[in-house]
């Protein structure tokens, strides 16, 4: 600040000195006006010369060699040089940062593609080029959906819901699977993450096949064992001491059969993740059938209510939906004491169709609820094994619902009972026939 003020005083002093000198010369020649004009002209010439040098210097950007001008002009030039130095320093830092960023993203094991709001490719890293067969620079500006044409991906891109990745199988090349996920950011820009999941998919397929084959192979010997146990149990000559153990063996064999049946069912459901189509299912009829099943049990809750509040039918795969609902109702019946009650309720609203199965049973401690749909997950080891469950029921329910675009909600209060609710999206419902009736003339 101080040198700048000095500079100003110096400049003003110089102007004053020039004016005084001009006036002095003018007084000598007896013409003060002409002397003043000459002094101002000299000063103006000097200012113009400096301006010219400054402009010339700025135009040629010869920052390393600033013109040597005194006074305020020199100060201005020094400021410009300082500004420029600072800018260059920041620029270099940015360039360095950019390079580091680009190097690190290029080294990522996953593919990254940046898309603008029009889905045009702005940038991609090396792995993305390799996985998606993109050509560097030539493919910039092209729309991603023109190059990546798999119908699953196009559907995913159009759906606007990017919470889960989509797995595609590129039509070209050996059994490859790519997982793609879009993450929107900024002004409608999209980040597309690509990873090769072939290994996981193959492992998954091997595991699925193993479970399916093992279950299938176990079934035949078990049938033989159950058959002989049945004959043995009915043999009047059987030693009465053995009657108890044989009956227990039969029960366990039956349980094993049900586990294997559920395992096979699960592996069949897992084979495809696609949402099944299906035909309209009469939910009211299905629920009254399930009610009869519960009442046919040797020990059952004394009250089983069915409340159907909508005539809308559910579009789905009949055997799968039946299996899912019957698993829910079975669970309710199993864990509710004879003096308790079960209620099945079917209703529809703007959000879709809902089926709730409530019981007044033991309830489930809240820490177990998130893990209920895991295979063989037991809330209480002793209790469920005594009732003969396979431990796979809720896993089946979850898979069936997933295939129908539905989700399961569990609410439970310990000692008061539980409510399992299936939420189906509206497109899974038929138009209720009642609405059709009202449109007809009375």
């Amino acid at each position: 600040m101080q040198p700048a003020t000095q500079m100003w005083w110096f400049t003003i002093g110089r102007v004053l000195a020039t004016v005084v000198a001009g006036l002095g010369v003018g007084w000598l020649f007896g013409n003060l006006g002409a002397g003043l004009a000459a002094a101002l002209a000299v000063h103006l010439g000097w200012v113009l010369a400096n301006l010219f040098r400054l402009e010339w210097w700025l135009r040629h950007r010869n920052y390393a060699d600033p013109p040597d001008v005194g006074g305020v002009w020199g100060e201005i030039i020094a400021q410009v040089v300082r500004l420029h130095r600072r800018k260059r320093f920041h620029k270099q830092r940015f360039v360095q940062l950019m390079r580091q960023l680009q190097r690190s993203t290029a080294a990522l094991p996953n593919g990254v593609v940046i898309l603008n709001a029009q889905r045009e490719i702005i940038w991609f890293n090396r792995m993305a080029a390799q996985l998606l067969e993109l050509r560097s620079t030539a493919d910039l500006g092209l729309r991603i959906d023109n190059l990546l044409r798999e119908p699953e991906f196009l559907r995913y891109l159009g759906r606007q819901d990017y919470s889960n990745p989509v797995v595609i199988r590129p039509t070209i090349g050996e059994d490859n699977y790519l997982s793609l996920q879009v993450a929107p950011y900024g002004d409608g820009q999209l980040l597309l993450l690509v990873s090769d999941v072939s290994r996981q998919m193959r492992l998954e397929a091997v595991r699925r096949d193993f479970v399916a084959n093992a279950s299938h192979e176990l079934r035949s010997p078990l049938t033989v064992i159950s058959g002989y146990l049945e004959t043995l149990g009915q043999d009047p000559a059987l030693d009465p001491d053995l009657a108890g153990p044989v009956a227990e063996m039969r029960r366990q064999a039956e349980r094993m059969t049900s586990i294997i049946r559920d395992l096979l069912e699960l592996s069949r459901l897992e084979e495809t993740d696609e949402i099944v189509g299906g035909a309209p299912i009469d939910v009211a009829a299905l629920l009254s059938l399930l009610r009869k099943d519960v009442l046919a049990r040797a020990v059952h809750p004394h009250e089983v209510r069915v409340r159907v509040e909508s005539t809308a039918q559910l579009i789905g795969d009949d055997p799968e939906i039946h299996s899912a609902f019957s698993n829910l109702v079975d669970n309710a019946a199993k864990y509710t004491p004879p003096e308790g009650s079960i209620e099945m309720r079917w209703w529809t609203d703007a959000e879709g169709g809902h089926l709730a199965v409530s019981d007044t049973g033991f309830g489930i401690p809240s820490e177990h609820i998130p893990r209920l749909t895991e295979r063989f997950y037991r809330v209480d080891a002793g209790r469920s094994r005594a009732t003969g469950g396979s431990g796979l029921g809720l896993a089946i329910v979850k898979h069936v619902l997933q295939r129908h675009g539905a989700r399961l909600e569990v609410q439970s209060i310990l000692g008061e009972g539980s409510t399992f609710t299936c939420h189906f999206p509206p497109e899974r419902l038929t138009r209720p026939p009642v609405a059709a009736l009202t449109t007809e003339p009375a």
Partner: protein
Amino acid sequence: METADLSHHISRRFNEDLERVRSKVLGMGGFVEQQLQKAITALVEGDSSLGESVAMDDYQVNNMEVAIDDECSRILATRAPAAGDLRVIVAIIKTITDLERIGDEGEKIGYIASRLATMERPADKYREIKHLGRVVSEMVHDALDAFARMDVESALRVARQDRLVDEEYEAIQRQSITFMMEDPRTIRRALDVMWVVRALERIGDHAKNISEYVIYMVHGKDIRHTSLDDVERELRAGPGTAGAAP
């Protein structure tokens, strides 16, 4: 590149219309590619339900063709495009016809696959068909990529590959005849296989057609029924002179 031309339009709406219809064509192409892939897999792996689903889904290809055709007519009627834009529209109308035919051939393969799945499978497990199928799928894929990128070089490469497919077709035909003479019981199956190979060969032709439309779209040159060597020489000699709009 020609794609830059597309963005220099006075009317942005027109530009968007063109881009949208182009994307729809490529979306249809993607679906057709997958249908073809599924049909070949169904045949090679003897999966009858997959073959049936391919045959069932062909109606979607037809729907897409009709929708794109309508949109092209609308653009022609309301925008009266000229020069390069007109070529794009003409090329699109032709491309979707070929894509629809590829879909039909895929449907045929799917249908035959579901029938062959119930029969005894040959010892070589349809290795030749698998190989030919891969070549043909790649041709379709590359032709559509060339369409997306407006890439004349790749389009020419696809057109060249058709000769390979024809040779392969001849070879499988000779082999099938030998099988039929050796063991007349295989005639029924061999005839079905011939249908599939014939369908694949036709798909190769359609892919070649699509790549020819790409060259037409970019250079305004109709290269149908001319030797590929001549075409290449001409395109290399004067890319600037090529541009004779219809």
